[in-house]
């Protein structure tokens, strides 16, 4: 079992990393030939950095649009961030104090994540407009995330797993040596689902994460009159 899981994580990591690198490279290499920032837009690069930061850190556009989606979406993402930070202690030999101090926050994050997800899911089922645009895959991704959250919470509150053993297993993976994994059901489910998430990431709507940084309506500077903006293929069409 330990070997199986070790392999699973190697495969998942390779798919995730290679998939994301290829996608990001594709986004990077595709030109944005025209200036299309949604105005009013910043007129300087610093301004764009701030705009992007507001989008990524507080979901500014969503906030303007729909308070419910914002609340649930924000709860989920902040929860996820806190949980991720909490998990760092399983990956680092000598855990820095800051991560230790943040452990309880990570638990709160778990609750935020699950509440957010259930809120979003409820809206997806109850609000007719959102139900209309939903595909089966949208439900499955929610199911996956909710189950990751639940299986994780189970280990915290119901059936603890041997954390020391788990950490030995994980740190072993970095050195390509396979140690025993505690064979607890919630842990095995949790790890399986996380690996699944990593595998589907580069092939699904989860690409919104890198995508937002490449969105021309958000990342372009509003200066088309001052600076001529071109792409290689548009320059090729310029004939004197």
């Amino acid at each position, binding site marked *: 079992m330990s070997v199986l899981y070790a392999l699973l994580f190697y495969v998942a990591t390779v798919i995730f990393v290679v998939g994301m690198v290829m*996608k990001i490279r594709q986004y990077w290499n*595709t030109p944005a030939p025209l200036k*299309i920032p*949604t*105005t009013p837009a910043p007129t300087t690069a610093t301004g764009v950095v701030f705009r992007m930061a507001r989008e990524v850190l507080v979901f500014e556009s969503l906030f303007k649009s729909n308070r419910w989606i914002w609340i649930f979406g924000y709860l989920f993402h902040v929860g996820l961030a806190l949980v991720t930070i909490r998990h760092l202690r399983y990956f680092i030999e000598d855990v820095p104090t800051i991560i230790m101090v943040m452990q309880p926050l990570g638990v709160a994050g778990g609750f935020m994540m699950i509440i957010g997800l259930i809120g979003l899911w409820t809206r997806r089922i109850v609000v007719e*407009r959102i139900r209309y645009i939903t595909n089966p895959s949208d439900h499955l991704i929610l199911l996956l995330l909710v189950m990751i959250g639940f299986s994780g919470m189970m280990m915290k509150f119901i059936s603890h797993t041997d954390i020391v053993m788990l950490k030995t297993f994980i740190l072993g993976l970095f050195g390509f040596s396979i140690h025993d994994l505690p064979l607890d059901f919630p842990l095995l489910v949790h790890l399986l689902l996380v690996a699944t998430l990593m595998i589907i990431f580069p092939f699904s709507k989860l690409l919104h994460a890198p995508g937002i940084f490449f969105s021309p*309506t958000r990342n372009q500077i509003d200066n*088309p009159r001052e600076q001529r903006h071109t792409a290689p293929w548009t320059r090729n*069409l310029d004939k*004197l």
Partner: protein
Amino acid sequence: MADFQVPEYREYPGAPIPLQEGATAHLKPFLAKPNHQEQLGFPGELVENWEEKAIAKMGDLLNRYRSLRVYMDACVKCGSCTDKCHYFQGTADPKNMPVARQDLMRSVYRRYFTLAGKYFPKLVGARDMTREVLDEWYSYFHQCSQCRRCSVFCPYGIDTAEISMAAREIMDSIGYGQKYCNEILGKLQTIGNNLGLPGKALESTLGEFEEEIEEDTGLPVKIPIDKVGADILLITPSADFFAEPHIDGLMGYAKVFHEAGVNWTLSSYASEAANFSMFIGSYDNLKVVAERIRKAALDLGVKRIIVGECGHAWRVAYSFWNTTAGIGSGGDEPYAQALQKQLDHNYPIPQHICEFIWDLIQKGKLRFDKSQTDWRTVTFHDSCNVARGSRMGNYPGGQFDIPRNVIKAVCNNYYDMDPDTIKEKTYCCGGGGGLLTDDLMEIRVKGALPRMEALNEVVKDHGVTHLAAICAICKAQFAKILPYYKFPMDMIVSTHQLVSEALVMTGSTQEEELDEE
């Protein structure tokens, strides 16, 4: 008056709208004739293996436009944009929800360009490119005015306009284009304007306007055309030469130019600011049309270029002219330099007519008699393309302030509409994006609902009598649809019509009367 029902004002415009599947599936514009298609370099009619060709074209566009590439992938179906489109609000057809409109293409994208869609089409809602899909595309991608309201509210800035432009380009490339846009673009490229008005006809029309202004002011105000050596080239939508209330705006510009004492001209070769190439997503045509203006500027030797009141034209001029034709500043390539070294970069290039006049007003160069417009109470309609696709002045949001400042400088009675319906959240008039054609009347009327509701509110609350605009399409659309909502058609006015009404020109009869009092 119509063979469809004009929507009723909603009691709570924010309340959820029960979906009516297929409510406007029957609406589609006339198909372009072979000659309309061919003159733009598209196949005359639906090509044989169009399914394959369409997919190949989609692949080509995915490689050329980062917007399309990222937007196909990034949508999480959060639903934030679903109730933001005026066409959805006016029709309740779920396919008019921005994300559902994108999904018409995204479903095909997923089928042919993603692993998930290749192997699990049902799971991710992927579809083959079939006749039904094409029909849906033709219908619903012509029920999008590319106003970008949805993109304001999307957490990733997904712009449905980019997707409907790409869809139209794909349809054009397989011989399935829209008559209205393509026919007009043909006229523009052969004659010089959307109307197909030749230079001679134009000259005589302008002569009539000159007489009218002289009668009114007692001054020999000129509207020069093809004047070599002029400093300023005015590029304005050709509707300004013949339609109401556009004409009054044009006479307004002429009076302002005269009063400012500048040396300006129109061009018969480039007698059109509109550039419908944007609506059909065709970079090639966008460039061909913009290059007419480049050529006119070079031939006439002008130093500045000013653009008249038109929404999408201002977006094209402001955002795309520099890229497509080197009309602007800061271009190093020889192609851009050829024109740019002749231009005077102390002024913005291109400059919006509202920027030009606001500058004069701030310098105290114009005199107004605001009592002349006291019989009006005015509100302002932000054109979608100006609001969300361009700028005026030197700070973000200048496009909202400058036209309002100009109106307030000439009118005492001004009120804004509901803040959720103006500025960056403005609603399209309902006729933008290549929809301003009689064969799409139903969607135009229905799509105007949110704007009409907001207008109705200020009419009731503040006694607003006139709706000012800075867009040829908005003006034509409102003149047509206001009566459907029981407003008089002459409620819509040009912004420079208001300027013209209040302007007191040096040496004019108005000045004499005013100074006698």
